């Protein structure tokens, strides 16, 4: 019986390792596809009872990624950006922290937008984050369907392509993009930026979360016009931004909260500072981060 139990444990462990490794490979492939593939299509974004239809275009040109997201629901809402190509330099760190708090399961094959896709589930090991379910295009790895599911097994948010065309850029374009990425100065990123240097510290981070990287240009943008500190926590799949700014005038202590799909925003006060937390995590996780924020400066 002991031998059989041993065999069972070894087999279980091996199968979990296989599943995790296969899952990580799929996630890496997904990240790569999101940045390096050319794709355009119609995407439906569902949040509770709200349904938004959007037109998405992503193109790699001259080493620069151009991405445009337009709402097709009548209003003039769009988001577009131009970024240099993505680098996977920070991914290994994310993968390690991710493995501690998610178990990855590779599921069945499905069909989304007339394309075969592989189901991948990142199952949280605690209640501090949402379950994430992907369906990744079999050929390219692009996520064709993505949903975040809460503790009550309800989808808080879902993205799904209804039609999409995907193409791989020509090899010389990819090579150019890679060289442009390598040439970009690494000092533009704040390595594991934390509030330790300032008046604020966190006594204990939620399990699996670590300080994420932010570009310097962003810090300048946040501080523009007001003395606001911004740091970011990530578990590899979800992230929480914490913004801290001093309150000049005496204000009643009002806690505000808004929610949009998986995105939660909390604003609370502590030691004459306004603390705003934004992230795709349950509100309890944010509350825990807030509770563990300690002010060491004078009032």
């Amino acid at each position, binding site marked *: *019986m002991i031998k*059989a*139990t041993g065999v069972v444990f070894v087999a*279980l462990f*091996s*199968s979990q390792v296989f*599943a995790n490794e296969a899952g990580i490979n*799929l996630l*890496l492939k997904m990240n*790569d*596809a*999101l*940045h*390096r593939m050319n794709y355009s299509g119609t995407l439906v*974004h569902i949040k*509770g*009872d709200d349904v938004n239809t*959007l037109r*998405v275009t*992503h193109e790699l040109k001259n080493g620069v*990624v151009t*991405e445009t*997201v337009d709402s097709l629901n009548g*209003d003039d809402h*769009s*988001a577009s*950006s131009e*970024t*240099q190509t*993505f*680098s*996977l*330099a920070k991914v290994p760190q994310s993968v390690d922290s991710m493995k501690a708090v998610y178990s990855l399961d*590779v599921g069945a094959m499905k069909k989304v937008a007339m394309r075969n896709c*592989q189901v991948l589930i990142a199952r949280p090991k605690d209640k501090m984050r949402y379950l994430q379910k992907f369906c990744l295009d079999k*050929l*390219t*790895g692009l996520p064709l369907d993505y949903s975040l599911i809460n503790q009550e097994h309800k989808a808080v948010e879902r993205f799904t392509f209804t039609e999409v065309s995907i193409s*791989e850029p020509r090899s010389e374009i990819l090579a150019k993009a890679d060289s*442009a990425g*390598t040439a*970009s100065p690494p000092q*533009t990123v704040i390595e594991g930026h934390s509030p330790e240097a300032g008046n604020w510290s966190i006594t204990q981070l939620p399990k699996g979360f670590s300080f994420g*990287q*932010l570009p310097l240009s*962003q810090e300048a943008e*946040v501080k523009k016009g007001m003395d606001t500190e911004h740091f*970011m926590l990530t578990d590899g799949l979800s*992230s*929480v931004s914490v913004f801290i700014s001093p309150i000049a005038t005496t204000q009643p202590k*009002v*806690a*505000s*909260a*808004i*929610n949009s*799909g998986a995105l939660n*925003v*909390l604003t609370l006060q502590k030691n004459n500072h306004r603390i*705003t937390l934004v992230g795709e995590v349950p509100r309890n996780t944010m509350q825990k981060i807030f509770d563990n924020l300690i002010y060491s400066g004078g009032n």
Partner: protein
Amino acid sequence: MSHITKEEYLSAFVDGEAGSFEQHRICDQLATDEVMRDKFSSFSLIGEAIRNNSQTEASIASPSFLSGIQDAIADDEPVVLTQGDSTVISLDAAKARKRLFPKQAFGYAAAASVAAVAAISFQNYNSTQEMSQQTTSASLEAEAPVNKVQVSSIISSVKPVKTKLAKTAPKNDYFITASFKAPDAEMRGLMNKYVAHHLQYASSSTLMPRVRAVSYSTDF
């Protein structure tokens, strides 16, 4: 208004006419109530007597019939196994032998399940490997430093529309618990700005944050 007594419920239970809720309730009562147990025995005997039409046999049994059987079982000493006597088996050994089969079966079943899981995982792993080979983009080779991210128009696209928001009722995915208040227009503007920053910078992926940004701007 009719009043149904315990006895009537018990009678219905004996006759198999009680509902599932009543069955559970009566079972609970039988476990604790001595009087109920006596009545149950009586009712059972009466029922048996009526059904079999055999008054003689039924009258042999008494309400303490079950307790008599239990006493007899308690008095029954287990047979002790003596060395070298293979024909005599102790009660404990017999029980252990009986348990052996379920244990083995459980062991084999567990091992078979694990083997099945392992096989499925291995298949998935292989299929993933196959997928990896199909796309030639060297995702793991790129070890370049993280690149500069330009400030985009996303921030300006998520506008804090103060007057509109003050008049518009919150949408149904917008919730406020007792401890959290609705943000005023000024606070909403600030929150919108922070949301834009978060979606712009605090993600390793690109597509989902931008979709969220557009959806969010349609909400607030």
